[in-house]
Protein backbone atom coordinates (compact mmCIF):
# COMPACT_ATOMS: atom_id res chain seq x y z
CA UNK A 1 0.00 0.00 0.00
CA UNK A 2 2.96 2.25 0.39
CA UNK A 3 3.37 4.14 -2.84
CA UNK A 4 6.67 5.92 -3.44
CA UNK A 5 6.93 9.37 -4.93
CA UNK A 6 6.93 8.93 -8.69
CA UNK A 7 6.73 10.80 -11.97
CA UNK A 8 2.93 11.02 -11.79
CA UNK A 9 3.14 12.89 -8.53
CA UNK A 10 5.73 15.25 -9.94
CA UNK A 11 3.59 15.83 -12.99
CA UNK A 12 0.62 16.62 -10.77
CA UNK A 13 2.70 19.18 -8.86
CA UNK A 14 3.94 20.73 -12.08
CA UNK A 15 0.38 20.98 -13.31
CA UNK A 16 -0.46 22.78 -10.06
CA UNK A 17 2.46 25.13 -10.65
CA UNK A 18 1.01 25.83 -14.10
CA UNK A 19 -2.33 26.81 -12.57
CA UNK A 20 -0.50 28.98 -10.03
CA UNK A 21 1.23 30.71 -12.90
CA UNK A 22 -2.04 31.21 -14.78
CA UNK A 23 -3.79 32.61 -11.71
CA UNK A 24 -0.82 34.93 -11.10
CA UNK A 25 -1.03 36.24 -14.65
CA UNK A 26 -4.79 36.79 -14.33
CA UNK A 27 -4.27 38.53 -10.98
CA UNK A 28 -1.59 40.76 -12.37
CA UNK A 29 -3.36 41.64 -15.61
CA UNK A 30 -6.75 42.22 -13.96
CA UNK A 31 -5.30 43.84 -10.86
CA UNK A 32 -3.00 46.03 -12.93
CA UNK A 33 -5.86 47.23 -15.11
CA UNK A 34 -8.19 48.01 -12.22
CA UNK A 35 -5.26 49.29 -10.14
CA UNK A 36 -4.33 51.79 -12.83
CA UNK A 37 -7.86 53.18 -12.73
CA UNK A 38 -7.68 53.24 -8.91
CA UNK A 39 -4.38 55.17 -9.04
CA UNK A 40 -5.84 57.74 -11.43
CA UNK A 41 -8.98 58.10 -9.29
CA UNK A 42 -6.88 58.60 -6.17
CA UNK A 43 -5.29 61.73 -7.69
CA UNK A 44 -8.33 62.88 -9.66
CA UNK A 45 -9.38 66.53 -9.40
CA UNK A 46 -12.90 65.20 -8.76
CA UNK A 47 -13.41 64.86 -5.04
CA UNK A 48 -16.03 62.10 -5.22
CA UNK A 49 -13.65 59.89 -7.22
CA UNK A 50 -10.84 60.52 -4.75
CA UNK A 51 -13.03 59.57 -1.81
CA UNK A 52 -14.57 56.54 -3.50
CA UNK A 53 -11.18 55.16 -4.52
CA UNK A 54 -9.71 55.82 -1.08
CA UNK A 55 -12.65 53.95 0.47
CA UNK A 56 -12.14 51.04 -1.92
CA UNK A 57 -8.44 50.82 -1.12
CA UNK A 58 -8.99 50.98 2.63
CA UNK A 59 -11.75 48.39 2.50
CA UNK A 60 -9.80 45.90 0.41
CA UNK A 61 -6.52 46.41 2.24
CA UNK A 62 -8.36 45.87 5.50
CA UNK A 63 -9.89 42.58 4.35
CA UNK A 64 -7.96 39.29 4.33
CA UNK A 65 -7.55 37.85 0.84
CA UNK A 66 -8.89 34.59 2.27
CA UNK A 67 -12.21 36.25 3.07
CA UNK A 68 -12.36 37.76 -0.42
CA UNK A 69 -11.94 34.24 -1.80
CA UNK A 70 -14.76 32.91 0.39
CA UNK A 71 -17.01 35.77 -0.61
CA UNK A 72 -16.36 35.34 -4.33
CA UNK A 73 -16.77 31.58 -4.30
CA UNK A 74 -19.28 30.67 -1.57
CA UNK A 75 -20.97 34.05 -1.11
CA UNK A 76 -21.75 34.56 -4.77
CA UNK A 77 -22.91 30.98 -5.22
CA UNK A 78 -25.58 31.50 -2.55
CA UNK A 79 -26.70 34.55 -4.50
CA UNK A 80 -27.10 32.29 -7.52
CA UNK A 81 -23.80 33.02 -9.31
CA UNK A 82 -22.00 29.75 -9.27
CA UNK A 83 -18.53 30.54 -10.45
CA UNK A 84 -15.78 28.08 -11.35
CA UNK A 85 -13.00 28.15 -8.77
CA UNK A 86 -10.55 29.74 -11.22
CA UNK A 87 -12.94 32.61 -11.97
CA UNK A 88 -13.77 33.20 -8.30
CA UNK A 89 -10.08 33.14 -7.39
CA UNK A 90 -9.25 35.39 -10.35
CA UNK A 91 -11.84 37.95 -9.28
CA UNK A 92 -10.64 37.94 -5.66
CA UNK A 93 -7.01 38.27 -6.69
CA UNK A 94 -7.88 41.09 -9.10
CA UNK A 95 -9.63 43.03 -6.34
CA UNK A 96 -6.82 42.38 -3.89
CA UNK A 97 -4.02 43.27 -6.29
CA UNK A 98 -5.77 46.40 -7.58
CA UNK A 99 -5.96 47.93 -4.12
CA UNK A 100 -2.27 47.43 -3.44
CA UNK A 101 -0.83 48.12 -6.87
CA UNK A 102 -3.14 51.15 -7.19
CA UNK A 103 -1.58 52.65 -4.09
CA UNK A 104 1.95 51.80 -5.21
CA UNK A 105 1.34 53.47 -8.56
CA UNK A 106 -0.36 56.49 -7.00
CA UNK A 107 2.76 57.00 -4.92
CA UNK A 108 4.95 56.70 -8.02
CA UNK A 109 2.87 59.22 -9.94
CA UNK A 110 3.04 61.62 -7.02
CA UNK A 111 6.78 61.08 -6.74
CA UNK A 112 7.19 62.90 -10.06
CA UNK A 113 8.04 66.44 -8.93
CA UNK A 114 5.22 68.96 -8.87
CA UNK A 115 7.37 71.26 -11.01
CA UNK A 116 7.13 68.79 -13.89
CA UNK A 117 3.34 69.17 -13.89
CA UNK A 118 3.74 72.91 -13.71
CA UNK A 119 6.21 73.08 -16.59
CA UNK A 120 3.89 70.94 -18.73
CA UNK A 121 0.93 73.09 -17.76
CA UNK A 122 2.81 76.25 -18.77
CA UNK A 123 3.42 74.71 -22.20
CA UNK A 124 -0.35 74.64 -22.75
CA UNK A 125 -0.59 70.85 -22.57
CA UNK A 126 -4.00 69.55 -21.49
CA UNK A 127 -4.38 67.50 -18.31
CA UNK A 128 -4.49 64.24 -20.25
CA UNK A 129 -1.41 65.24 -22.29
CA UNK A 130 0.48 66.24 -19.14
CA UNK A 131 -0.30 62.88 -17.64
CA UNK A 132 0.42 60.77 -20.73
CA UNK A 133 3.43 62.60 -22.14
CA UNK A 134 5.21 64.00 -19.11
CA UNK A 135 4.20 62.38 -15.82
CA UNK A 136 3.42 58.74 -16.61
CA UNK A 137 6.66 58.05 -18.53
CA UNK A 138 8.59 59.28 -15.49
CA UNK A 139 6.33 57.47 -13.02
CA UNK A 140 6.76 54.24 -15.01
CA UNK A 141 10.45 54.25 -14.35
CA UNK A 142 9.93 54.83 -10.64
CA UNK A 143 7.21 52.17 -10.51
CA UNK A 144 8.98 49.28 -12.21
CA UNK A 145 11.05 47.90 -9.29
CA UNK A 146 8.28 47.98 -6.65
CA UNK A 147 5.79 46.58 -9.16
CA UNK A 148 7.97 43.63 -10.05
CA UNK A 149 8.68 43.13 -6.35
CA UNK A 150 4.96 43.02 -5.66
CA UNK A 151 4.51 40.36 -8.36
CA UNK A 152 6.40 38.01 -6.06
CA UNK A 153 3.75 38.58 -3.38
CA UNK A 154 1.04 37.87 -5.92
CA UNK A 155 2.55 34.52 -6.91
CA UNK A 156 2.77 33.41 -3.30
CA UNK A 157 -0.69 34.68 -2.37
CA UNK A 158 -2.33 32.61 -5.10
CA UNK A 159 -1.84 29.69 -2.70
CA UNK A 160 -4.90 30.95 -0.83
CA UNK A 161 -7.03 29.92 -3.80
CA UNK A 162 -6.70 26.36 -2.49
CA UNK A 163 -9.50 27.16 0.00
CA UNK A 164 -12.04 27.37 -2.80
CA UNK A 165 -10.92 24.05 -4.19
CA UNK A 166 -8.73 25.45 -6.92
CA UNK A 167 -5.94 22.96 -7.45
CA UNK A 168 -2.95 25.23 -7.75
CA UNK A 169 0.50 24.38 -6.49
CA UNK A 170 -0.20 24.45 -2.73
CA UNK A 171 -3.39 22.42 -3.07
CA UNK A 172 -1.67 19.97 -5.41
CA UNK A 173 0.95 19.49 -2.72
CA UNK A 174 -1.75 18.73 -0.16
CA UNK A 175 -3.37 16.21 -2.46
CA UNK A 176 -0.11 14.44 -3.17
CA UNK A 177 0.81 14.41 0.49
CA UNK A 178 -2.57 12.98 1.46
CA UNK A 179 -1.88 9.93 -0.65
CA UNK A 180 1.83 9.54 0.24
CA UNK A 181 2.10 11.03 3.70
CA UNK A 182 5.58 12.32 2.99
CA UNK A 183 5.04 15.92 4.12
CA UNK A 184 8.69 16.86 4.29
CA UNK A 185 9.50 15.67 0.80
CA UNK A 186 6.32 16.95 -0.81
CA UNK A 187 6.27 20.39 0.77
CA UNK A 188 9.98 20.87 0.11
CA UNK A 189 9.22 20.22 -3.53
CA UNK A 190 6.30 22.64 -3.43
CA UNK A 191 8.47 25.29 -1.78
CA UNK A 192 11.14 24.69 -4.41
CA UNK A 193 8.65 25.16 -7.22
CA UNK A 194 7.37 28.43 -5.69
CA UNK A 195 10.96 29.56 -5.40
CA UNK A 196 11.55 28.77 -9.08
CA UNK A 197 8.54 30.92 -9.97
CA UNK A 198 9.48 33.81 -7.66
CA UNK A 199 13.23 33.97 -7.88
CA UNK A 200 13.42 35.25 -11.47
CA UNK A 201 11.02 38.04 -10.48
CA UNK A 202 13.05 39.04 -7.41
CA UNK A 203 16.20 38.95 -9.47
CA UNK A 204 14.63 41.06 -12.19
CA UNK A 205 13.36 43.55 -9.61
CA UNK A 206 16.82 43.96 -8.10
CA UNK A 207 18.33 44.41 -11.52
CA UNK A 208 15.78 47.08 -12.42
CA UNK A 209 16.44 48.89 -9.18
CA UNK A 210 20.16 48.98 -9.85
CA UNK A 211 19.59 50.23 -13.34
CA UNK A 212 17.27 52.94 -12.05
CA UNK A 213 19.98 54.23 -9.75
CA UNK A 214 22.86 53.98 -12.19
CA UNK A 215 21.35 55.10 -15.47
CA UNK A 216 17.92 56.64 -15.05
CA UNK A 217 17.44 57.35 -18.72
CA UNK A 218 18.16 53.97 -20.28
CA UNK A 219 14.49 52.98 -20.21
CA UNK A 220 13.34 56.19 -21.86
CA UNK A 221 15.96 55.97 -24.56
CA UNK A 222 14.51 52.69 -25.78
Amino acid at each position, binding site marked *: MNVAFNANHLQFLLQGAGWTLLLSVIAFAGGGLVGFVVALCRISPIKALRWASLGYVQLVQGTPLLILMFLAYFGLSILGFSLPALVAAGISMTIYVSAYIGEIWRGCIQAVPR*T*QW*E*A*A*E*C*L*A*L*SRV*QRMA*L*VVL*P*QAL*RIATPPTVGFMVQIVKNTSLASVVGFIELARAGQVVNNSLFEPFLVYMLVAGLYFLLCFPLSWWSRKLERRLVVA*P*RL*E*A*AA
Partner: protein
Amino acid sequence: MTAPVVRLDNVHKSFGALKVLDGVSFEVGKGEVTAIIGRSGSGKSTALRCIDRLEKIDQGRITVCGHQVSEPGLDLRQLRRDVGIVFQSYNLFPHLTAAENIALAPRHAKGRTRAEAKEITERVLAQVGLSDKAACYPEQLSGGQQQRVAIARSLAMEPQVMLFDEVTSALDPQLTGEVLKVMADLAAGGMTMVLVTHEMAFARNVADTTIYMHGGRVWEQGGREMFDRPQTAELQQFLGNGL
Protein backbone atom coordinates in the same frame (compact mmCIF):
# COMPACT_ATOMS: atom_id res chain seq x y z
CA MET B 1 -0.04 103.67 -28.41
CA THR B 2 -1.11 100.04 -28.47
CA ALA B 3 -2.52 98.31 -25.41
CA PRO B 4 0.05 96.94 -22.97
CA VAL B 5 0.87 93.24 -23.28
CA VAL B 6 0.82 92.74 -19.52
CA ARG B 7 -1.15 94.89 -17.12
CA LEU B 8 -1.53 94.41 -13.38
CA ASP B 9 -4.06 96.61 -11.67
CA ASN B 10 -4.16 96.81 -7.88
CA VAL B 11 -3.41 93.10 -7.42
CA HIS B 12 -3.74 91.57 -3.95
CA LYS B 13 -2.67 88.07 -3.00
CA SER B 14 -2.28 86.32 0.34
CA PHE B 15 -1.01 82.89 1.30
CA GLY B 16 -3.09 82.25 4.39
CA ALA B 17 -2.43 85.09 6.78
CA LEU B 18 0.65 86.21 4.84
CA LYS B 19 0.00 89.12 2.54
CA VAL B 20 2.33 88.66 -0.45
CA LEU B 21 1.00 91.19 -2.93
CA ASP B 22 -0.49 94.34 -1.51
CA GLY B 23 -1.90 96.36 -4.37
CA VAL B 24 0.58 95.80 -7.18
CA SER B 25 0.11 97.71 -10.44
CA PHE B 26 2.37 97.93 -13.47
CA GLU B 27 2.29 97.67 -17.23
CA VAL B 28 4.56 96.14 -19.82
CA GLY B 29 4.28 97.40 -23.39
CA LYS B 30 4.96 95.43 -26.54
CA GLY B 31 8.67 94.81 -27.05
CA GLU B 32 9.53 96.13 -23.61
CA VAL B 33 11.78 94.44 -21.09
CA THR B 34 10.75 94.84 -17.48
CA ALA B 35 12.92 93.62 -14.64
CA ILE B 36 11.52 93.05 -11.16
CA ILE B 37 14.05 93.26 -8.36
CA GLY B 38 13.72 93.13 -4.58
CA ARG B 39 14.77 91.05 -1.64
CA SER B 40 13.47 87.54 -0.93
CA GLY B 41 9.86 87.57 0.17
CA SER B 42 9.09 90.89 -1.47
CA GLY B 43 6.50 89.22 -3.69
CA LYS B 44 8.34 89.50 -7.00
CA SER B 45 8.15 85.81 -7.98
CA THR B 46 4.52 85.63 -6.90
CA ALA B 47 3.70 88.63 -9.08
CA LEU B 48 5.32 86.86 -12.04
CA ARG B 49 3.51 83.58 -11.34
CA CYS B 50 0.18 85.42 -11.18
CA ILE B 51 0.72 86.68 -14.74
CA ASP B 52 0.72 83.06 -15.99
CA ARG B 53 -2.09 82.15 -13.57
CA LEU B 54 0.11 79.71 -11.67
CA GLU B 55 -1.29 81.54 -8.67
CA LYS B 56 -4.82 82.93 -8.39
CA ILE B 57 -5.15 86.46 -7.14
CA ASP B 58 -7.54 87.55 -4.38
CA GLN B 59 -8.35 90.98 -5.68
CA GLY B 60 -7.56 93.29 -8.57
CA ARG B 61 -7.16 92.68 -12.26
CA ILE B 62 -4.55 91.16 -14.55
CA THR B 63 -4.71 91.43 -18.33
CA VAL B 64 -2.21 89.52 -20.47
CA CYS B 65 -2.30 89.61 -24.28
CA GLY B 66 -5.99 90.47 -24.12
CA HIS B 67 -6.81 87.62 -21.71
CA GLN B 68 -8.57 88.60 -18.50
CA VAL B 69 -6.38 86.40 -16.30
CA SER B 70 -8.37 87.11 -13.15
CA GLU B 71 -11.78 86.39 -14.70
CA PRO B 72 -13.50 83.00 -14.34
CA GLY B 73 -14.08 82.59 -18.09
CA LEU B 74 -10.34 82.54 -18.83
CA ASP B 75 -9.15 80.10 -21.51
CA LEU B 76 -6.15 78.84 -19.58
CA ARG B 77 -4.59 76.90 -22.44
CA GLN B 78 -4.84 79.90 -24.79
CA LEU B 79 -3.15 82.04 -22.12
CA ARG B 80 -0.34 79.48 -21.86
CA ARG B 81 0.05 79.49 -25.65
CA ASP B 82 0.66 83.23 -25.53
CA VAL B 83 2.86 83.31 -22.43
CA GLY B 84 6.20 81.52 -22.09
CA ILE B 85 7.75 81.01 -18.68
CA VAL B 86 11.21 79.83 -17.64
CA PHE B 87 11.91 78.67 -14.09
CA GLN B 88 14.90 78.80 -11.79
CA SER B 89 15.13 74.99 -11.72
CA TYR B 90 14.81 74.58 -15.55
CA ASN B 91 12.17 71.86 -15.18
CA LEU B 92 13.14 70.09 -18.37
CA PHE B 93 11.50 66.70 -18.84
CA PRO B 94 14.26 64.24 -17.90
CA HIS B 95 12.92 61.37 -20.00
CA LEU B 96 13.13 63.37 -23.23
CA THR B 97 16.09 64.70 -25.22
CA ALA B 98 16.61 68.42 -25.67
CA ALA B 99 14.95 68.27 -29.09
CA GLU B 100 12.03 66.19 -27.78
CA ASN B 101 11.56 68.60 -24.86
CA ILE B 102 11.26 71.44 -27.33
CA ALA B 103 9.08 69.70 -29.93
CA LEU B 104 6.58 68.31 -27.38
CA ALA B 105 4.39 71.38 -26.93
CA PRO B 106 4.36 72.56 -30.56
CA ARG B 107 3.32 69.03 -31.57
CA HIS B 108 0.69 68.40 -28.93
CA ALA B 109 -0.48 71.79 -27.67
CA LYS B 110 -0.41 73.58 -31.00
CA GLY B 111 -1.01 70.65 -33.33
CA ARG B 112 2.04 71.24 -35.51
CA THR B 113 3.11 68.43 -37.81
CA ARG B 114 6.25 66.47 -37.08
CA ALA B 115 8.11 68.28 -39.86
CA GLU B 116 6.99 71.72 -38.65
CA ALA B 117 7.98 70.89 -35.09
CA LYS B 118 11.37 69.71 -36.27
CA GLU B 119 11.94 72.94 -38.14
CA ILE B 120 10.91 75.03 -35.10
CA THR B 121 13.15 72.94 -32.84
CA GLU B 122 16.17 73.46 -35.06
CA ARG B 123 15.51 77.19 -35.24
CA VAL B 124 15.16 77.77 -31.49
CA LEU B 125 18.09 75.50 -30.64
CA ALA B 126 20.24 77.57 -32.99
CA GLN B 127 18.89 80.70 -31.35
CA VAL B 128 20.22 79.60 -27.95
CA GLY B 129 23.43 78.25 -29.50
CA LEU B 130 22.83 74.56 -28.77
CA SER B 131 22.23 72.99 -32.17
CA ASP B 132 24.83 70.34 -31.39
CA LYS B 133 23.03 69.23 -28.21
CA ALA B 134 19.68 68.28 -29.76
CA ALA B 135 20.07 64.58 -28.97
CA CYS B 136 21.31 65.06 -25.38
CA TYR B 137 19.23 64.24 -22.34
CA PRO B 138 18.97 67.02 -19.73
CA GLU B 139 21.30 65.23 -17.30
CA GLN B 140 24.03 65.25 -19.95
CA LEU B 141 23.91 69.05 -20.13
CA SER B 142 25.38 71.68 -17.82
CA GLY B 143 23.02 73.87 -15.80
CA GLY B 144 23.50 76.74 -18.21
CA GLN B 145 22.81 74.52 -21.21
CA GLN B 146 19.71 73.10 -19.54
CA GLN B 147 18.42 76.59 -18.89
CA ARG B 148 19.05 77.56 -22.50
CA VAL B 149 17.11 74.49 -23.66
CA ALA B 150 14.31 75.55 -21.30
CA ILE B 151 14.31 79.00 -22.89
CA ALA B 152 14.27 77.39 -26.35
CA ARG B 153 11.38 75.16 -25.27
CA SER B 154 9.35 78.25 -24.37
CA LEU B 155 10.35 80.06 -27.54
CA ALA B 156 9.14 77.14 -29.63
CA MET B 157 5.59 78.05 -28.64
CA GLU B 158 6.14 81.46 -30.24
CA PRO B 159 4.80 83.33 -27.20
CA GLN B 160 3.77 86.98 -27.15
CA VAL B 161 5.56 87.51 -23.86
CA MET B 162 8.27 85.63 -21.98
CA LEU B 163 8.48 85.43 -18.18
CA PHE B 164 11.76 84.57 -16.44
CA ASP B 165 11.66 83.57 -12.79
CA GLU B 166 15.19 83.97 -11.36
CA VAL B 167 16.51 81.85 -14.19
CA THR B 168 20.18 82.29 -13.28
CA SER B 169 19.94 81.89 -9.51
CA ALA B 170 21.04 78.26 -9.58
CA LEU B 171 24.03 78.87 -11.87
CA ASP B 172 27.65 79.81 -11.30
CA PRO B 173 28.84 83.16 -12.75
CA GLN B 174 30.19 81.69 -15.97
CA LEU B 175 27.01 79.74 -16.75
CA THR B 176 24.96 82.77 -15.70
CA GLY B 177 26.76 84.75 -18.39
CA GLU B 178 25.79 82.39 -21.21
CA VAL B 179 22.14 82.40 -20.16
CA LEU B 180 22.03 86.18 -19.78
CA LYS B 181 23.53 86.54 -23.25
CA VAL B 182 20.67 84.51 -24.72
CA MET B 183 18.21 86.71 -22.86
CA ALA B 184 19.90 89.91 -24.01
CA ASP B 185 19.71 88.64 -27.62
CA LEU B 186 16.01 87.96 -27.15
CA ALA B 187 15.46 91.45 -25.77
CA ALA B 188 17.37 92.94 -28.70
CA GLY B 189 15.16 90.91 -31.04
CA GLY B 190 12.09 92.72 -29.71
CA MET B 191 10.65 90.05 -27.39
CA THR B 192 8.39 91.36 -24.66
CA MET B 193 9.94 90.15 -21.42
CA VAL B 194 9.27 90.26 -17.69
CA LEU B 195 12.07 88.94 -15.54
CA VAL B 196 12.52 88.51 -11.84
CA THR B 197 16.22 88.73 -11.23
CA HIS B 198 19.06 89.28 -8.80
CA GLU B 199 21.38 90.31 -11.64
CA MET B 200 21.47 94.07 -11.06
CA ALA B 201 23.85 94.76 -13.91
CA PHE B 202 21.58 92.90 -16.32
CA ALA B 203 18.48 94.75 -15.10
CA ARG B 204 20.28 98.04 -15.41
CA ASN B 205 21.70 97.42 -18.89
CA VAL B 206 18.98 95.44 -20.63
CA ALA B 207 15.68 96.34 -18.99
CA ASP B 208 13.69 99.31 -20.24
CA THR B 209 11.96 99.52 -16.88
CA THR B 210 12.97 98.13 -13.51
CA ILE B 211 10.48 97.64 -10.74
CA TYR B 212 11.72 97.49 -7.17
CA MET B 213 9.30 95.53 -5.00
CA HIS B 214 9.24 95.81 -1.25
CA GLY B 215 6.70 94.38 1.19
CA GLY B 216 4.37 93.25 -1.59
CA ARG B 217 4.25 96.67 -3.25
CA VAL B 218 5.87 98.40 -6.18
CA TRP B 219 8.17 100.58 -4.12
CA GLU B 220 10.03 102.30 -6.90
CA GLN B 221 9.99 102.08 -10.66
CA GLY B 222 12.14 103.61 -13.34
CA GLY B 223 14.74 103.25 -16.03
CA ARG B 224 18.47 103.11 -15.77
CA GLU B 225 18.60 106.32 -13.76
CA MET B 226 16.87 104.58 -10.86
CA PHE B 227 20.05 102.61 -10.14
CA ASP B 228 22.12 105.79 -10.02
CA ARG B 229 19.66 107.87 -8.02
CA PRO B 230 17.39 105.62 -5.94
CA GLN B 231 14.70 107.76 -4.36
CA THR B 232 13.71 105.60 -1.41
CA ALA B 233 15.83 104.58 1.54
CA GLU B 234 14.83 100.92 1.00
CA LEU B 235 16.11 100.82 -2.57
CA GLN B 236 19.28 102.67 -1.58
CA GLN B 237 19.94 100.08 1.04
CA PHE B 238 19.02 97.19 -1.29
CA LEU B 239 21.34 98.41 -4.04
CA GLY B 240 24.01 99.23 -1.51
CA ASN B 241 23.97 95.64 -0.28
CA GLY B 242 23.54 94.16 -3.71
CA LEU B 243 26.42 95.83 -5.53
